[in-house]
């Protein structure tokens, strides 16, 4: 007989893994970094004298002044953390995992701040849209503006290929080469920061120089390490006690294990092939009586 009414089957008990909202949160950072300045500029340029307009104008001014600095700071942190994450003489694997996480977070913040910076410069009519993407087209300060655009383009390529890293498993060297352009883009960004905008205070110049020197040194060390020993893992100390048997045992005696390890369980008696049904006295007591089977 066929069913007359449809019975609903409830699908229950699915386990939700933690961190499901993570990708949404990650996406929110660049989206917000574009939305907030756009809104602030729109409200500020709408005019009026309300409190809101003043606050929006303040936010827009602050971001216009500082978002480039934030981008540079975050991308500096990203370059340093990325370099640190490859280090294996001082850093333990746990610390390298932390450094990778820091590298990714700093890159996300840096690329968001960069987008924010470009957008605000365009909105403030200090640059055209094309200057955000095509280098050396700016009307004034062409060279240093162009350096910034070039660095920005490189960072975008690096972040996008970084997100697609798993797809590059078969073109590992290509990925490495693309990713290593960060070491070129980052000094360009620093030059742009120092020369394209307002004139920097001396301590800023000094700290930029210090950062360049530190990362340069780390970079040199990294490639020296790579050149010296490609396979540092082989130099790790071997774990003690991997084999208890001496390496030079002569031919094994007939039953070597019994002599060496009396604690090993004795091999069980094999079941006779002809009679898998043993005699009655071999059975546990009470399970079979003379007449047949007991206990019923």
């Amino acid at each position, binding site marked *: 007989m066929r069913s007359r009414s449809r019975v*609903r089957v409830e699908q229950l*008990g699915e*386990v939700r893994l933690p961190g499901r909202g993570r990708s949404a949160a990650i996406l929110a950072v660049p989206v917000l970094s574009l939305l907030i300045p756009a809104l602030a500029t729109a409200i500020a340029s709408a005019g009026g004298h309300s409190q809101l307009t003043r606050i929006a104008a303040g936010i827009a001014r602050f971001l216009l002044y500082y978002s480039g600095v934030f981008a540079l700071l975050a991308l500096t942190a990203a370059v340093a953390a990325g370099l640190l994450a490859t280090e294996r003489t001082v850093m333990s694997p746990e610390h390298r995992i932390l450094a990778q996480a820091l590298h990714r977070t700093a890159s996300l913040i840096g690329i968001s701040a960069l987008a924010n910076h470009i957008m605000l410069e365009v909105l403030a009519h200090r640059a055209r849209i094309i200057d955000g993407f095509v280098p050396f087209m700016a009307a004034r300060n062409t060279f240093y503006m162009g350096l910034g655009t070039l660095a920005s383009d490189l960072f975008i390529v690096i972040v996008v290929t970084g997100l697609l890293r798993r797809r590059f498993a078969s073109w590992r060297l290509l990925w490495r080469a693309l990713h290593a352009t960060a070491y070129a883009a980052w000094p360009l960004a620093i030059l742009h920061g120092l020369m394209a905008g307002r004139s920097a205070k001396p301590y800023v110049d000094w700290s930029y120089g210090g950062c360049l020197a530190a990362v340069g040194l780390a970079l040199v060390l990294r490639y020296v390490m790579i050149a010296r020993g*490609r396979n540092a893992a082989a130099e*790790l100390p071997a774990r003690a006690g991997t084999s208890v048997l001496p390496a030079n045992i002569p031919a094994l005696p007939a039953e070597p294990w019994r002599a*060496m390890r009396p604690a090993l369980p004795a091999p069980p008696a094999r*079941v006779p092939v002809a009679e898998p049904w043993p005699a009655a006295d071999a059975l546990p007591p009470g399970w079979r009586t003379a007449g*047949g089977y007991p206990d019923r």
Partner: protein
Amino acid sequence: MLPVIRVGQARVTAGLDHTPRLDLPSHRAVFGFPPTLAAAELIGICEEVDLRGRGGAAFPVARKLRAVLTAAVQAKTGQGKRRAAVVVNCTEGEPGSAKDKILLARAPHLVLDGALVAASALRASEIVVAVAGDGPHLRSLTDAVGSDSALARKVRVVSVPDRFVSGESGALVNAINGNPALPPGTKTRASDSGVHGMPTLLSNAETFAQLAVLALLGPAGFASVGTGHEPGTVLLTVGGSVSAPAVVETPSGVPLGYILDICGAQLPRAVLVGGYHGMWLHPGAAYDAPVSRAGMAAAGGTLGAGVVLVLGQDTCPLGEVTRVAGYLAMQSSGQCGPCKLGLPAVARSLAAITAGAGGVDELEALRRAAGGVRGRGACHHPDGASNFVASALEVFADDLIEHIFHGSCGRPASGILPLPADGGDTRLTVDWTRCRGHGLCARLIPELVELDQHGYPRLLEAPVPFWLSKNATQAVDMCPSLALSLTADQVKPAAAAAVSAAADPPSPLAVRARQQPQAVLTGRAWRRADLDAAEAWLAEIGGPGPARPL
């Protein structure tokens, strides 16, 4: 779908000789209407025949009923109206078991009758039937529930993820209440607080089918077959190296060897009783052990949920055990540390020994790891897995010696023990030419990766479980050498074919042929005298026939 064989009188499989599935009219024709019993009557008859749960734990049904009743009455006096619930557990997460699926697929109304008898005795407000996975059993169940509008109003059908621990009672109650199907950390008995906090009678599908038979036949009729201490019949799922795997209904007390001969087992290397939380038996012990809880316990095994898996002589026993140990490790729900890290350690040590790469120290590490997980989890899973491995080490002691000292026993592991193969699994793979032993993966997924003495990863040969998928993806993303990757698993057609419920039921003729065991029995494995004795005994326990038409 596995064929159904019965030995002697048919009870829960009655009527299946003639039809692939008992729909409501044919079910009523075979079984009639179950009586309406008061709670005291029901508890009385359950106590009289000592009916036990058939899901593996063998908890007395009468005690469970009484606990639910007590809790319901106490709650009633406390806060007005508080009713009980009945949960039929058909999740059957054990890969070797098929009896509950077969019951649902072929005699769904018997299971529902049992649930209705219990529900009316307890005045339960809700009956929940929980199944796992899709297949004929789910279609048959929804058809059966939908065939009667009164039934459709009373019964909720719930589908939970098809995993080993989904069927644990706490996990099942969690799922029915809308939470993840994971065993709870603090033990609460379903009889105290189950579905929506109601006192809940939770038992397995076969238990409810047996309950229906008990209500129909009465205690005397029920006890007319089987041993004195454990009367009635038992459903077994026999698989592995047998020519005719089947679900077998047998009176308790019949020697397991008799059942194994019917199913075409030939000189096994060992027999696994009680499923993957059960024990290995030497064939000598297994063949003589009566099919009953006491009989299996006396032989050093356990009846569990009635899973009997035969391991033939031409497969590597340790290889088979390793496969199952890897499966069990990945079936941990990832909640309790000793289980989620300990079981992979057991599987890795076993894999090393099986591959001839482990010495005596590895055996000691294995024993330590297997012993170390015992009693240290929210559910029974680590204990059951540990028992399984420990009994394998005992029964396959001479294979261990061959593997440890000679590298191999020379036989391939041919995948006799059934494991679910759904093909959608992913595995971690390493490009060894690229791996530089950075070791980040071992810190990110210690459950799946361990470093060897050179700092290179040793992976567990098992698909990545759902609770590790995020960590595995992270490990792939963070591999500094881009050497680690996740690849889709190839479908292994041979695995789990024994119990996968896919094909149509066999023709009635084929079923009848199977049901005449003397046609299958050969003189090879049995002495003539034993055969005669068993036949005479079976004729005797068939008895004068039940009071009602069965």
